[in-house]
């Protein structure tokens, strides 16, 4: 019976200590201007087009694309599955449940990144978590996913793999890259590296 007693006497006090210390209060609700600047410089709020394309193709339910452009522009073109929350109406009550949630990754996008970043910054200062920005906006999306540029044959393997992924993804998402390859069998979608970690909003460590 001895070892069991020692085990219990070892674990129970440690558990009691953890139960007694106050919950983690080191993470501020609102970032100070300096923290925010550091955050923006590190680019941690961005999802790259490759990540987003991969998630769309895999039908990852944790992704919510939010188009912050006007309704007209949304009607003309939007990414598959995106919802439309024009920046001007972002703070209306009807959208609150979308932008203030702890379940999914919201990825804002606009034509460039300006409006999406504004939406992100508003949300960040309101203390809403899980909001991100599509890196480079739709312009960069079209450039990288819809019409990827073929790398030189001497490029490193990663670059060629990335090109192949983008070409496949562009075709799967209805891009313009198909003319060149329409005679080839439908390309398998190569995997991009999965997100190595849960990307959560935090300042420096």
């Amino acid at each position, binding site marked *: 019976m001895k070892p069991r007693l020692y085990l*219990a006497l070892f674990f129970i006090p440690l558990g009691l200590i953890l139960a007694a210390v106050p919950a983690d209060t080191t993470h501020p609700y609102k970032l100070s201007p300096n923290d925010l600047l550091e955050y923006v410089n590190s680019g941690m709020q961005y999802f790259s087009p490759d990540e987003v394309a991969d998630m769309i193709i895999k039908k*990852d339910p944790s992704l919510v694309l939010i188009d912050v452009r006007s309704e007209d522009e949304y009607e003309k073109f939007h990414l598959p599955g995106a919802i439309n929350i024009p920046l001007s109406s972002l703070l209306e009550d009807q959208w609150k449940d979308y932008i203030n949630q702890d379940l999914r990754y919201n990825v804002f996008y606009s034509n460039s990144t300006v409006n999406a970043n504004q939406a992100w910054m508003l949300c960040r200062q309101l203390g809403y978590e899980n909001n991100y920005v599509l890196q480079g906006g739709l312009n960069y999306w079209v450039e990288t996913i819809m019409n990827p540029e073929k790398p030189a044959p001497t490029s490193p393997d990663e670059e060629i793999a990335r090109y192949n992924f983008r070409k496949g993804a562009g075709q799967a998402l209805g891009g313009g890259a198909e003319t060149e390859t329409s005679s080839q069998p439908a390309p398998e979608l190569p995997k991009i590296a999965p997100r190595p970690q849960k990307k959560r909003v935090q300042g420096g460590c």
Partner: protein
Amino acid sequence: MGPLVVNEIISQNTNFFLAFLIGIGFGFVLESSGFSSSRKLAGVFYGYDTVVLKVFFTAAIVGMLGMLFMSLFNWIDLDLVYINPTYLWSTIIGGIIMGAGFITGGFCPGTSFCAASIGKIDAMFFIGGMFLGVFIFAEAYPLLEDFYMGSFRGIPTLSEALGLKDGLVVMGIIFAALGMFWVGEWAEKKFPREGY
């Protein structure tokens, strides 16, 4: 400062190398403590040997306490630690299938490789079965996709789901674990089996 990989203190490759070393150590300990015997694993279900339950629950407690204390000392940022997303129904069904595999095969995925490495033929068949299952799942994926991806519940932790502080949940789990150890040892006395 932690997690080491996320904060780029060590590279992804170093991480794989460390995982490789830890994996070897894990396999060695599993084998040397007799986990490569399928009777040991089946014992959990029949109640005559609950070592597996005790070992893995102890590991969970040690890991849990370690993480929270390191967080308390500001050595690791728990918000950057990967948490498996919850897909409720696919997890439940997957758990049932895996449990059925445990009891019929007498191995869990880790111990099957341990047992195969010391030449147990049933373990090799078990591994073959695992690959067969993976293959069937992959081939049937288009049929299963809606179910597999459905019932997504985000990445909740127990404490968030219960609305309690991490520390309180930890203490509760420690008491639950000690209670389970006690029940396990009671079961071992209740359903003894000689020379398994």
